[in-house]
């Protein structure tokens, strides 16, 4: 089941193609990085939305030049304790300016959603079995103050208090 940054359930219009599966014209599909590289001419011509599924050990620099062709990038958390995709997300958003949808997939649990949102993720694939039980919207609202800058561009406490002090003439 797919969640957005408000914790609301969303329909998923994307089909995640296996490496040997055919795509239907006009369909929004994601492909693996291997397939995209192997068939790059075919995918670069496509007008229907295209997404990429990236393993969490791929440096984002490797796809930096192709980002404007992608409407969706799916990043992976093989286990919730494996935090490499947080870095991938920030680099894609902040360094390489990816403007499409960033999705978190894999072992995506409620208690990491806010970290993910702050790193630039827009959507989150969560376990359907738990979808009913969890208070998803609450997960995104557990904090509204943050100490450090991140992809969400919220002013961090570190600089906010300095700004307030300076504008108060202190």
């Amino acid at each position, binding site marked *: 089941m797919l969640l957005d940054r408000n914790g609301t359930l969303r329909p998923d219009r994307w089909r995640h193609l296996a490496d040997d599966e055919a795509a239907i014209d006009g369909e929004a599909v994601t492909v693996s990085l291997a397939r995209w590289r192997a068939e790059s001419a075919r995918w670069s011509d496509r007008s229907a939305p295209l997404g990429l599924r990236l393993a969490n*050990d791929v*440096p984002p620099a490797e796809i930096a030049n192709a980002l404007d062709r992608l409407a969706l990038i799916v990043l992976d958390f093989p286990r*919730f*304790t*494996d*935090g*490499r995709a*947080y*870095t991938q997300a*920030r680099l894609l958003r*902040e*360094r390489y300016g990816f403007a499409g949808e960033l999705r978190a997939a894999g072992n995506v*649990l409620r*208690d*990491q959603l*806010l*970290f*993910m949102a*702050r*790193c630039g993720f827009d959507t989150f694939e969560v376990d359907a079995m738990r979808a009913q*039980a*969890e208070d998803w919207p*609450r997960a995104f609202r*557990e*904090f*509204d*103050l*943050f*100490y*450090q*800058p*991140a992809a969400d561009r919220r002013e961090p*406490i*570190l*600089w*906010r*208090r*300095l700004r307030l*002090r*300076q504008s108060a003439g202190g």
Partner: protein
Amino acid sequence: MYRYDEFDRKFLEARVAQYRDQVRRRLAGQLSEDEFRSLRLMNGLYLQLHAYMLRISIPYGTLSSAQLRGLAHVARRWDKGYGHFTTRQNIQFHWIRLEDTPDILAYLATVQLHGIQTSGNSFRNITTDPFAGAAADEIEDPRPYCEIVRQWAALHPEFSFLPRKFKIAINATPEDRTAVKIHDLGLNLRRNEQGELGFQVLAGGGLGRTPILAQTVRDFVPRRDMLAYITACLRVYNQYGRRDNLFKSRIKILVQALGIDRYREAVETEFEAMGDERAALALPDAAVAAMQAQFAPPSYPDASDDEADLTRARAAEPEFARWVKYNVKPHKAAGHAIVVVSLKRHGKVTGDCSAGQMELLAELAERLSFGEIRITHDQNMVLPHVRKSALYDLWLRLAAAGLATPNIGLASDIICCPGLDYCGLATARSIPISQALATNLAKREEDIGPLQIKISGCINACGHHHVGHIGILGLEKNGAESYQITIGGSDGANAALGTIVGPAVPAHEVAAAVDRLIDVYLRLRRDGEQFPDTCRRVGAAPFKEALYVAR
């Protein structure tokens, strides 16, 4: 000392609320233990042999009297009346109930304390010199920088699921009372040739299974770029640190595998690529000044440096003289002194402190040390700003409470982890060994002079045995406890790892073996040589021989 503002308070309130809900979900069966474990660890809650253990962060080892009273209250109300101070300047409570922890953390939040950064695969406590702000040899007080890094690191969204724990130390003196070389990331504050402030950055230190000393990544990072450069170091680690093997996932393994040159190259490349992010993390002088204002030195009263009274008291009472000699250190302000409070009473448990002792120290700090207490990484406490004229009265109060053992830096000032008596990771007990050694060596420790004995109850080395002058590692052999002894380690500016001196010995032989090693040192030492100096000069052979002959 840093005082929370409304942002810090609201942040901590939100954290407590978040944790309370996580505990509720766990007890209701909505979260599995596997999912909950990371969450409770990120608030400092471990499961050990007998109960849950709660580790509370004491940022860079600095406490106010109000905070120390708060810890005493936790000990009384929710534990068994005592706490244990650790080698990372934190405190542990060993008899905690999960169901009490939301209330405990809510209570601690009212005195600006929490369990964040005390466990989990993210940043741990940023540690520093326990004499910071009081010692004459520091370039600047390192604590404002520690506090800036602590805040930047708090619930960092990108770095909360690192391959493994990450320990940072910041040092501002040539002597290095902070042991930067055994940290994942060490920062040495320094000035460049233009007199500008910045940091030498070292990475890849750590003890445990594979002890390694940190190496220099860059000699000078301008102060302004401190957070950006740390980010670059962390980002390389988060991406490339090993995640397939728990025992190879610290940054020290990555630096060792790449070699420091390639690690440095990766960090510098990342740092160069940071662009706007570097600007977003730049530390303006105003931010540093604002933080430094929080750590302004107390307004010391005019205190005479005249020591006539002190000299008289020392002459009259040899016990007091002994305490001044070993436990009192010079202070940069005239007429003041730094007092180390020994938690190493002979035969007691190193680093343990009762609620009553905490309350006494809180009161003494309020009256005599501007309300400030420090925790050292060798499990003692410090009253950092005491007037010399108050030393005698202070000593009387401390002695009455068992807090004045005159042994700082001596053989019975042992670092010792909780070991198999408490800890689920341990392979052997460590506390009974430290007690036996302390009582055995007490009678001759002044003759021996400075000696650092460090004991770990397992290979994870929380007792820092690798960097002990004499290090003891508790292992298990055929179902019995067995102790491996190393010599020649040290943890300061000339950090070195100890060498093994013989096969492991059973518990009842440890004290005699240590006696033998000390005898060799006493026989061979030259003027002013400390134990590791003699080891370096004569090598391990005489020591090994003494143990072999004895067997």
